[in-house]
């Protein structure tokens, strides 16, 4: 069977040729020397100005309040194109639940595709960066690195996604207001004035939003952030506010992270969530990383204190195998208690 018809190949060749014409050669070095495919870093073309990569995550879920299931949870494709030194375009396209194996057998009824991110970036210097398009909402740590190969657990704390929209369609401006030898203070402002480019399906969905973030980081020490967003919630037609704070510190063999989010609706109960996670990075041949996380969530109608403990194994630098147990997870929409496992690979 031919997977690629001649017209398709011609179209692909045309696109690549067009990008080549639009991409200036900035250096005299042979492109062959710096381009090519690197596992976990994508396919680099045109002297690294076009990068095509992504990741695949396959999840096994054995939770007591949902049917057992096994599925390729995410297949995500990134495309980065830098036509000029200070300009970049970035897109992330995701196929979810393409094939699911559960009590109903093998099916594709939950399959879907989404546009996770699509933006243009202008960065005239190290202290200023402007992005226009659809981006991840700059609140907290987890939301900005939520991809399965980058996080240590299969499950995601509610505090990182249940109190704000995970994506923002509009503008994000980052300004480095202080840069010391070892310390940065970055101020971020973001806003949304149009509908979401592709609905994120978040419990609190932005229709209009304006927010900001301050992040203080040290080169090899702790970093901490404060975030705030005021938004018109498309799901219940109210203006709401969410405040977040986060902390990350990798010291010696330990990585400690924590986040908290508080949602204050104009009417109704204030809800909030927080977690603390500890990861141990041993100098061991098998690259096994024990992980423990405690979370508290108050959703107004239910309270929950899930405890996650597990192990992440990194057989190669772009691959992670995770297995974890969850206890204390009753009465929420996350499936309850039990076991989760996943294999995630950056490509």
């Amino acid at each position, binding site marked *: 069977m031919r997977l690629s018809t001649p017209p398709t190949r011609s179209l692909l060749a045309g696109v690549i040729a067009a990008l080549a014409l639009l991409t200036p050669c900035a*250096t*005299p*070095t042979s492109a062959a*020397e*710096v381009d090519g495919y690197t596992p*976990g*870093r*994508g396919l680099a073309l045109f002297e*690294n100005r076009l*990068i095509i990569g992504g990741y695949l995550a396959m999840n096994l879920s*054995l*939770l*007591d309040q949902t049917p057992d299931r096994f599925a390729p949870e995410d297949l995500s494709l*990134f495309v*980065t194109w830098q036509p000029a*030194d*200070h300009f970049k375009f*970035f897109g992330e396209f995701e196929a979810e639940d393409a094939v699911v194996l559960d009590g109903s057998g093998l099916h594709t009824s939950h399959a879907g595709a989404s546009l996770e991110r699509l933006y243009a*970036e202008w*960065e*005239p*210097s*190290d202290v200023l960066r402007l992005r226009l398009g659809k981006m991840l909402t700059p609140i907290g740590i987890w939301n*900005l*690195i939520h*991809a399965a*190969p*980058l996080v240590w657990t299969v499950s995601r704390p509610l505090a990182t996604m249940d109190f704000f929209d995970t994506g923002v369609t509009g503008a994000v401006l980052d300004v480095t207001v202080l840069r010391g*030898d*070892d310390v*940065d203070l970055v101020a971020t402002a973001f806003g949304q004035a149009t509908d979401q480019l592709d609905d994120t399906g978040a419990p609190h969905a932005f229709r209009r939003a304006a927010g900001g973030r301050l992040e203080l980081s040290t*080169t*090899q020490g702790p970093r901490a952030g404060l975030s705030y967003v005021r938004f018109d919630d498309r799901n219940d037609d109210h203006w709401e506010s969410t405040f977040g704070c986060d902390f990350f510190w*990798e010291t010696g063999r330990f990585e400690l992270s924590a986040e908290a989010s508080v949602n204050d609706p104009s009417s109704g109960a204030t809800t909030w969530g927080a977690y603390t996670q500890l990861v*141990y*990075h*041993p*100098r*061991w*041949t*098998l*690259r*096994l*990383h*024990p992980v423990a996380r405690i979370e508290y969530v108050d959703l107004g109608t239910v309270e929950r204190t899930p405890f996650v*403990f*597990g*192990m992440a194994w*990194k057989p190669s*630098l*772009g691959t992670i195998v995770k*297995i*974890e*147990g*969850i206890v204390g997870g009753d009465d929420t929409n996350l499936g*309850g*208690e*039990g*076991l989760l496992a996943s294999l995630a690979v*950056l490509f």
Partner: protein
Amino acid sequence: MKRHEALSVFVAALMWVAAAAEPPRAGADERHDSASWVVVVPPSNPVRVLKRSELDRIYRRTTRYWNTSEAAQPALPILPINLPPGNVLRNDFARNVLRADDESLATFWNREYFQGVLPPLVLQSPAAVRAYVAATPGAIGYLPAALVDPSVAVVRVEEGD
């Protein structure tokens, strides 16, 4: 105790015990023999001194533009060059400048890759690094001191932050 709860507790306990019991890799904490390297830029680049912390930022690509006194408009992008993984010079450079091992750097770059930022270009030999740096405005690399010639300028790295 429910079936899933019991299963999760058992598996997690088993893995924590396995991790705790595994012996450290032989020599993992030992420092390797130090290699002698120098940092180089094109002679047209006026920078001749960098702090270690500045070099760290450059190789992590958190500093991406040269900040020279000539106030070039627009700012010239920095193109850091690495040698291949496993190279003795690269290992020594990472240990002394980035102060990180391969795995923690991989975790760092995995997260940057998700934001569309790639690690420094990798060239296969010090000679290739020298040729690239000599011909590329904005480039910076490191070489064995013995390979330095007039096609590149040496940058002194100051200790401390």
